[in-house]
């Protein structure tokens, strides 16, 4: 998997819980919650969607590291053994 494919997987998972989201408008440094209307149920469903598409189990204590796109890219790239996302 390339970094571009990973980014795509993250945005697809996010879009599955927030269909009104426009992927191109997501600021990678801003928290998802400050850009789209998601609650903890939506966030859990986002983590479950990532689990289903990437086969990764993110422990709850690591959730804060996936709070924005850059953080999620870094964290998941490491987990998948990809080169640094940035």
């Amino acid at each position, binding site marked *: 998997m390339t970094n571009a494919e990973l980014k795509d997987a993250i945005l697809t998972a996010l879009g599955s819980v*927030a*269909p*009104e989201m426009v992927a191109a408008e997501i600021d990678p440094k801003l928290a998802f919650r400050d850009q789209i*209307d998601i*609650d*903890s*149920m939506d966030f*859990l*469903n986002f*983590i*479950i969607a990532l*689990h289903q598409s990437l086969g990764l*189990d*993110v*422990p*709850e*204590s690591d959730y804060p590291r996936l709070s924005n796109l850059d953080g999620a890219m870094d964290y998941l790239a490491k987990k998948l053994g990809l080169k640094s996302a940035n």
Partner: protein
Amino acid sequence: MPALGADMEAGTLVEWLKQPGDRVQRGDIIAVVETQKGAIEIEVFRDGVLDKLVAVPGQKLPVGAVMAIIRSAGEAPAVPPIAPAHAPPPQAVKPLRPAAPAGAPPVPAPVATSGHVRASPAARRQAAALGIDLAALPGSAAGGAISLADVERAAAQRPAPALAAAQGMRQAIGAAMARSKREIPHYYLSTTIDLEPALRWLEAENMKRPVTDRLLHSVLLLKATAVELRSYPEFNGYWTEDGFRPVDAVHLGVAVSLRQGGLVAPAIHDADRLALGDLMAMLRDLVRRARAGGLRSSELSDPTITVTNLGEQGVETVFPVIYPPQVAIVGFGAVSARPWIVDGAVTPRRVLVASLAADHRVSDGHRGARFLAAIARLLLEPDRL
């Protein structure tokens, strides 16, 4: 047509999911009805054999109208089938059109083409096809008659379906809440709950669970509320013409905000008896169906109390409004770390404010205070949940 909440006056049949001759059981989904709360799956309330479909798809029916005839096994078919007198004749109403707002001023029927309205035949045909009320249109033709152009203009000015649906839901919420504020003498209480033990328990529990089975802290709040309602029955039930009617079962209405605006508060049935994992699964399913459509009729018609959790938005205290005919609503605010005194020493704890609005016709603040305190106590011992 079942009443899916106190604020519903009518619904539009979208489709039948069973055919005459089909055997049906209580709880089977027999039809889909469009309401201000979206498309709702209608459940059968008795066992038997579907004898006759009375309502036709696209037809708008008032609450209480006969939609179909079900005969008990062994009962002779109703021959010839007779449509009950109070079932209205089919109207040429387009499916998915939002129902008239409950409690709002009477709106003219969509296709009431009264004989007194002067309109061209083409205008009449087009108005009927589009579901536009000619009587509400200004006429621009000679003598104030309505032309085809007038109808087309009115059609173009109509709100888009999504917007119309949102407006319908807003009106329904407004009508229910206006009734609540008009009729229910609310009293309000709040208490701050030490959630630290519950959250630590939850964090340890979630480490053991696969991601798909993890619990949200709101599930603990729902369970604690549901369990304590058994000891505080004056908050669980309905206000009726004959006064308060308590309900033995705890059908916990859960306020779910919709992405396009508005909210619904469908019930999790027998929430006090569900294990936490099952309650979480029910909550996930309920939120998904509330947002995507596919709530069931019983979920909307029988909540015995509502819980609203606005903590996600950082709100400290919720001052909730009771959803009639219920007699109480519990609100939960945000979890936040605060200096807290435990065993005489100040220590950081994660706390949350629980609030209660209840109906003074049924209970007093004294009992309300004890109810909130009981929820707080139970949450200090999450093992008991």
